[in-house]
């Protein structure tokens, strides 16, 4: 490719387009372009590693924290919990349950995970609900109601409801509350999505079900609604022992950088996210260009979504155009199973950027903070909960602001390092899987009455 035309044809990869492909910008005619090595990512997902045991977390959170978990679980021993969602693989909820359920069982709080079933028509309806609860348009016709309720009914017939606590994740299984009995079982609705501005028709249909729950759990106060039941705040969390977050050997970090042609002797500024306009990858390149007038750095934009999503492909094209032959902009379109590579890229970075224009919670921010990196992030969604401006990272509202912070942090490494240290502590305290386990144990205790919360002004000495 030497005609200067920037298309996806210019991807260099070792497999199908989009599988570990480096999207590289061809040089203008007559300009020699540096050849990047080909990445080596499998074209198929690897087998998942075994789930960690509770003791594996001790070096990270400390033995006293594990002792607290065991104490809280003791009072729940013999109690049973059923978690229900709509998919066993893929998606954030399944990822969380894959880790949460084994840990609860290891703590002898018997926890089952069941997945509701439904035809394509059911999942089309629930996808419509999902988008509408984020504020999109959707018409709740009688046919829509019938589809939702008939599959709910089928699942009710198929499933048993004999546990002490039932946790329904998101709207898909919400109407299973119809199986609630007055004499047994406490029901929790765990809503992972942003309900701050729901489509009134869809929320009007779902709300009578939600109001029957004994408690609701949201990821942010801003995502919640006024409900009849008490509402609790469970921040989304990351697993420090997952492939994406576990410690890596330096040699692995170096190997990934070598594979992708990243020069670690120079600063590396990275944004990890899907090629999605709401993540503003074009704005990140503009900020990088402004910063580059004063500081030397490379920019890595790594993510997925350009292969299976037509809009992603269009955004990738815009990104390539904005990159404009800059050999220091490294654009990586990675498959979904690139956890180790993402981990290594984050660890190799001098700064992490998440310049989102709209965001849910922003777990890529959590991941960057956990790796002790100074983070520059858009002040949207759940990001300010994680990035406390100038304390655990810096918040920006514009391309210019982002550019300034890149310059400032690259030229003030001690301050940047302090932000990174604070950020990691913030994640350790509030956004790790073990903290989530603790929150579940507390909620179960409160719901089952095995303990009573302690007013702050009362207590034993």
């Amino acid at each position, binding site marked *: 490719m030497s005609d200067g035309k920037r298309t996806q044809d210019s991807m260099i990869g070792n497999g199908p387009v989009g599988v570990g492909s480096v999207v590289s910008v061809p040089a203008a005619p007559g300009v020699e372009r540096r050849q990047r090595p080909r990445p080596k990512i499998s074209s198929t997902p690897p087998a998942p590693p075994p789930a960690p045991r509770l003791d594996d977390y001790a070096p990270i959170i*400390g*033995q*006293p*924290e594990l*002792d*607290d978990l065991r*104490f*809280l679980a003791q009072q729940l021993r013999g109690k049973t919990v059923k978690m229900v969602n709509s998919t066993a693989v893929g998606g954030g909820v399944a990822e969380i349950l894959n880790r949460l359920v084994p840990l609860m069982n290891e703590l002898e709080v018997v926890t089952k995970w069941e997945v509701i079933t439904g035809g394509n028509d059911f999942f089309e309806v629930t996808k419509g609900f999902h988008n509408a609860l984020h504020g999109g348009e959707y018409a709740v016709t009688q046919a829509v109601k019938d589809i939702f309720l008939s599959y709910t009914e089928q699942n009710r017939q198929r499933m048993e409801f004999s546990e002490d606590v039932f946790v329904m994740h998101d709207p898909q299984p919400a109407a299973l509350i119809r199986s609630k009995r007055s004499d047994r079982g406490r029901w929790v609705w765990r809503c992972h999505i942003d309900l701050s501005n729901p489509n009134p028709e869809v929320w009007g249909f779902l709300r009578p079900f939600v109001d029957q729950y004994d408690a609701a759990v*949201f990821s942010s*106060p*801003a995502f*919640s609604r*006024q409900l009849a039941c*008490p*509402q*609790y*705040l469970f921040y989304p969390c990351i697993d420090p022992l997952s492939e994406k977050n576990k410690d890596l050997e330096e040699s692995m970090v170096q190997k990934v950088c070598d594979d992708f042609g990243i020069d670690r002797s120079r600063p590396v500024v990275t944004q990890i996210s899907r090629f999605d306009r709401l993540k503003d990858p074009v704005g990140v390149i503009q900020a990088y260009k402004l910063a580059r007038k004063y500081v030397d750095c490379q920019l890595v934009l790594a993510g997925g979504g350009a292969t299976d999503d037509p809009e992603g492909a269009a955004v990738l094209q815009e990104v390539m155009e904005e990159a404009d032959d800059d050999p220091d902009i490294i654009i990586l379109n990675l498959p979904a199973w690139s956890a180790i590579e993402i981990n290594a890229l984050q660890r190799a970075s001098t700064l992490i950027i998440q310049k989102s224009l709209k965001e849910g919670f922003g777990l890529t921010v959590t991941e960057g903070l956990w790796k002790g990196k100074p983070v520059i992030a858009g*002040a949207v969604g759940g990001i*300010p909960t994680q990035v*406390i*401006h*100038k*304390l*655990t990272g810096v918040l920006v509202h514009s391309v210019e602001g982002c550019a300034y912070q890149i310059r400032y942090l690259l030229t003030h490494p001690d301050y940047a390092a302090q932000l990174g*240290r*604070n950020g990691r*502590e*913030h994640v350790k*305290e*509030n956004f790790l899987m073990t903290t989530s386990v*603790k*929150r579940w*144990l*507390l*909620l179960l*205790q*409160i719901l089952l009455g095995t*303990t009573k*919360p*302690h*007013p*702050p*002004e*009362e*207590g*034993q*000495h």
Partner: protein
Amino acid sequence: MATAEMMGVPRRQARAPFYFQSAAHLIRIGREKASNLGELLEALKVCPDESIFQHTFQTLREHHFIREGFSNDFAHWAFAACNEVGLAERLAGIDVREFMSIAALRQRLVDIVESYLQQNPRARDRAALEPFYFSASEVIVIPTPFVARDLAEFSDGVRHVSLTSIHFHFIDARLRLKLDTNDFSLWLEHELDLGRLADRINRIDIYTSTLHDVRRAILRFVQSALG
């Protein structure tokens, strides 16, 4: 440190042991929400005690790793969402350890916001960048395996318990004790007759130290007493 007080300290047995405890916190989303300072003032007057506790005492634990620049959620919001630096400074100046009741702390918060709005009436209805969502902390007290019968065992406990336990005994304690002290100092003074050590520990500044620093300072003072 007074020599008489320190004589025989390593072997001195406490009249009653110190049981180290910890606490677990679940955050309940509150009903109150403020989109401007006027709404904050009204909500401060009526929110549950657990909300005042969450946004002052508890948030210090959640952000224990920050050595400077973070005091409580109200101050942070006044600064970051309302851009009211003068108010933020006054709210940040509140030292929770001066308060032995939630009611008194609530009144101080109300007084500060009220007086600021009297001086700056236009700030009352100015929309904040982000609303302030009140939440409340539900606390469950958890025992730990650490018990101290003398100063050496006390030192061992302080070294090994979680930071949540340090926060529970050192910062939250005032609300339970209704005294201008903390669990550690009270025990050292009453059970081991170590009033000066108790006082030294009580004067550790939590607003310029992380909880790790607090733990280190306590251990340093105790080690010096043990010789």
